[in-house]
């Protein structure tokens, strides 16, 4: 197949372009910064319609995300990250996650999350007309995920 390209050519041969990639390039981007860029073996993202597992050579895909835990496997190691809202784009072994929030477990302030959880629960319990129900609910979810993830260290 690659006969037209001289063997000393530095360009990748068509053959090498066709081989199956065995790694995914995972990028997690927030409005403020590039939060993560890693080569990984597998990613699971919290899609709006349920968890989405992504392995190398996945079909191109775009999906919305909900608040939850993004996890990825690097060799035998599993790592997790808190993400909230946004999108995932999968294209040619590149997984790009756009999210408002992206925190590693060690970056999470569990005490703060606990306070936020209490606050959000009180708000939801008060059932006042003046509260933004969706926002309070979102805050509650975020706090719960943070505690769950941060508590494990």
């Amino acid at each position, binding site marked *: 197949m690659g006969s037209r390209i001289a063997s000393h050519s530095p360009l990748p041969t068509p053959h090498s372009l066709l081989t199956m990639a065995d790694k995914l390039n995972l*990028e997690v*981007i*927030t*409005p*403020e*910064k*590039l939060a993560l860029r890693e080569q990984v073996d597998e990613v699971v993202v919290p*899609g*709006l*319609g349920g968890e*989405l597992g992504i392995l190398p050579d996945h*079909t*191109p*895909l*775009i*999906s*919305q995300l909900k608040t939850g835990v993004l996890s990825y496997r690097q060799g035998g190691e599993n790592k997790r990250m808190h993400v909230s809202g*946004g*999108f995932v*784009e999968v*294209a*040619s072994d590149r997984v*790009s996650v*756009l999210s*408002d929030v992206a925190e590693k477990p060690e970056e999470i302030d569990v005490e703060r999350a606990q306070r936020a959880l209490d606050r959000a629960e009180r708000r939801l319990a008060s059932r006042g007309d003046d509260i933004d129900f969706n926002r309070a609910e979102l805050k509650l979810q975020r706090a719960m995920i943070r505690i769950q993830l941060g508590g494990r260290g």
Partner: protein
Amino acid sequence: MPNLQDLRRRVRAVKNMRQITKAMKMVAAARLRRAQERVTAARPYTQKMMQILGDAARRAPEYKDPLLTGHQQNLGEGENRREHVILALVTADKGLCGGFNTNLIKAAQEFLKTNTGSDVELVLIGRKGYDFFRRRPVKIRREHVGITGTGRVNASDAAMIARGLIEDFKSEGNRIDRVYLLYNEFKSALSQRPVVEQLLPVGHIEETGNAQPETLVDYIYEQPASEIFSELLPKLVENQVYHALLESVASELGSRMTAMDSASKNAGEVIDKLTLVMNRVRQAKITREIIEVVSGAEAL
């Protein structure tokens, strides 16, 4: 002839001032570097978002959203209708940054002058703009003070402001026709320029990024493209506001750095001049005393 004591005191005072302006310059320079890094760090998000947005726009060309195209029913009403416009003005919370705030306020007044045909309401971000306009006969819708004070901006603050503007645009029976953003664009540490940007309606989505036809990918959409689109549009506005705030902060710091640099230089000049006068006065005094002694001796 000025008094020697007073001159000494003035030189000391100006030296103190120079110390302060020098320190402010250093602080501004350090913060400016960080502010620029933040502008760079925010770029991947914008690029990726524009790419996804461009693709979704291509997928759902028939998708209509007032955020994108404006309020259709207002367009039909023709010439008689007065347009309602919101101008969001981004100024600094602090002064001592040269012509930074003055230029912005001038640009805002210019905007008001050229748009006398429509009702303009202001959303003021930053204390300086608020302090100026609250005593003047303009309609202020809202003010956000203390967001850029520390020289760093949170994306969540920007998102909060943007959501407020979107809310304004969508509510009140679609009264608001357009939302503009006026801020200082960061060109370099030495030059900043006030720019007016139309924030809403968004208008045409440019397919930026690496959208060459051959790299277009046929994505599976987990949700309908129109849904992704409507989810992304507010994020685009949030991102635009965040970007404007970042640029504004960088400009403010750049402007303060230049202003404080020239202030330090001026202080140096004043010190030199005063020292010269001081030495002359001292010399004159000594000469006079010698003359007095000599003439006193002669008189004997």
